[in-house]
């Protein structure tokens, strides 16, 4: 594995071996000194051309737990505002001594393009509405640690599938690992074409509540004009919000997940967000472990199998 860009590039075996490695890193993060010297002397650079706090912080935490140095590039304060091209920027970051780039960009395919321009490994930290592969890994790890498996579980992904890179990555990862995926969304928030996706589609959350093991709520992207694709927030909450009433209708062992940041009172009710069966903070913690696994896989030498 040279880059980590798209879940579709990976076989089930690759996903499972990354999850196994991440399990080991969870143990390291629980130690009194949660740090190992594995990547001493390496520099991990986060180049986020689109605002993000938690993903960037999570990558930095992961890099530091492996003793790598970190640099971070933020477009607002950089030469991008002077018109430097993406290509010049990434080549500059490489020339400065980066050993790995984590790239987030609003353009679909940006990370893949960046990988063509550099000789160092590239990790996709999110490209447009296309892929967010480390999110998929951390969600899969959260599910696998909770249930002891992913195979055979039924996962509902609820909300704005059309604009969601999280949905696209997670559909691929969950189904590759043997879960059954149902998309729950109004037609306006579904992709125009879902032919060939390994999913079922349901227009009603209420219909699937009693059957699913995992309810994966997507964020209503207020800043991306959420209100233009469905009539009103109250209507969204009424049909797709994880309210207390709906939460009570889930199977007793079912869990609720959300990639964050949550809009409390919109896609998830306050009380549900704080319930122990909502694993949002566990997802955040697993995010550090899977990013350690990805960084270590790309920078720590070849795996002998």
């Amino acid at each position, binding site marked *: 594995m040279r880059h980590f860009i798209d879940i579709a590039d990976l076989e089930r075996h690759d996903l499972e071996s990354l999850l*196994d490695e991440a399990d080991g890193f969870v143990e*390291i993060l629980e130690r*009194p000194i949660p740090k190992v*010297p*594995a990547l001493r002397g390496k520099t991990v650079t986060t180049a986020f051309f689109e605002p993000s706090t938690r993903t960037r912080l999570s990558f930095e935490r992961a890099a530091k737990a492996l003793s790598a140095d970190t640099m971070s590039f933020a477009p607002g304060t950089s030469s991008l505002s002077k018109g430097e091209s993406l290509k010049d920027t990434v080549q500059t970051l490489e020339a400065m001594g980066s050993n790995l780039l984590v790239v987030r960009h609003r353009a679909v395919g940006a990370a893949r393009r960046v990988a063509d321009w550099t000789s160092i490994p590239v990790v996709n930290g999110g490209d447009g509405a296309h892929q967010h592969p480390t999110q998929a890994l951390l969600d899969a790890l959260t599910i696998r640690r909770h249930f002891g498996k992913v195979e055979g579980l039924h996962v509902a992904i609820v909300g704005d599938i059309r604009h969601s890179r999280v949905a696209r990555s997670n559909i691929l990862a969950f189904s590759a690992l043997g879960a059954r995926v149902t998309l729950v969304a109004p037609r306006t928030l579904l992709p125009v074409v879902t032919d060939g996706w390994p999913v079922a589609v349901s227009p009603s959350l209420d219909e699937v509540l009693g059957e699913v093991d995992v309810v994966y709520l997507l964020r209503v992207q207020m800043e991306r004009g959420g209100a233009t694709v469905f009539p009103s927030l109250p209507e969204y909450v009424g049909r797709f919000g994880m309210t207390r009433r709906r939460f009570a209708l889930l199977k007793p062992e079912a869990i609720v997940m959300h990639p964050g940041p949550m809009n409390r009172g919109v896609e998830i009710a306050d009380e549900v967000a704080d319930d122990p069966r909502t694993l949002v903070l566990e997802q955040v913690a697993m995010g550090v472990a899977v990013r350690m696994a990805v960084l270590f896989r790309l920078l720590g030498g*070849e795996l*002998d*199998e």
Partner: protein
Amino acid sequence: MRAVMDAADMARALRRIGHEIVERNRGVDDLVLLGIHTRGVPLAQRLAREIADFEAAVPVGELDVALYRDDLDRRPKTRIGATRVPVSIDDRVVVLVDDVLFTGRTVRAALDSIADLGRPRRVELAALIDRGHRELPIRPDYVGKNLPTSRRQRVMVHVSEIDGNDRAFVEEAV
């Protein structure tokens, strides 16, 4: 391939090392055995059983030191195993257990790993085979067999828990 220890030799060596550990530490108070992945782990468990037979139970754990190696870039990486330490190692005597002691780099990595897990009173080292060629100032406290080798040879220990049989052998480099 040349056999250097059979199952009976290994059992006798482990029994003797068990006795030496207890004798030197005057009992088992404060002892912890930590096996180094991969084959040090079953060896540490067997040592703990030996010691339990004639003295008393000793806690036993396992260390994977791959993330502490200084030669990650230079050798094929193996899958990372678990690190499990059943008790606090603070102020205890840790006995590291490995199958083959060679350059000392694995032990160096294990010492760094232990320093991150706590502050033992003392750390001792037990190796089933010491084949020489140290690259660091590290020496074992307990040795099953001293084996003169050339640097190019490979010394392998097989244990029944992993390999299905107990034996040690030397291979000429290919």
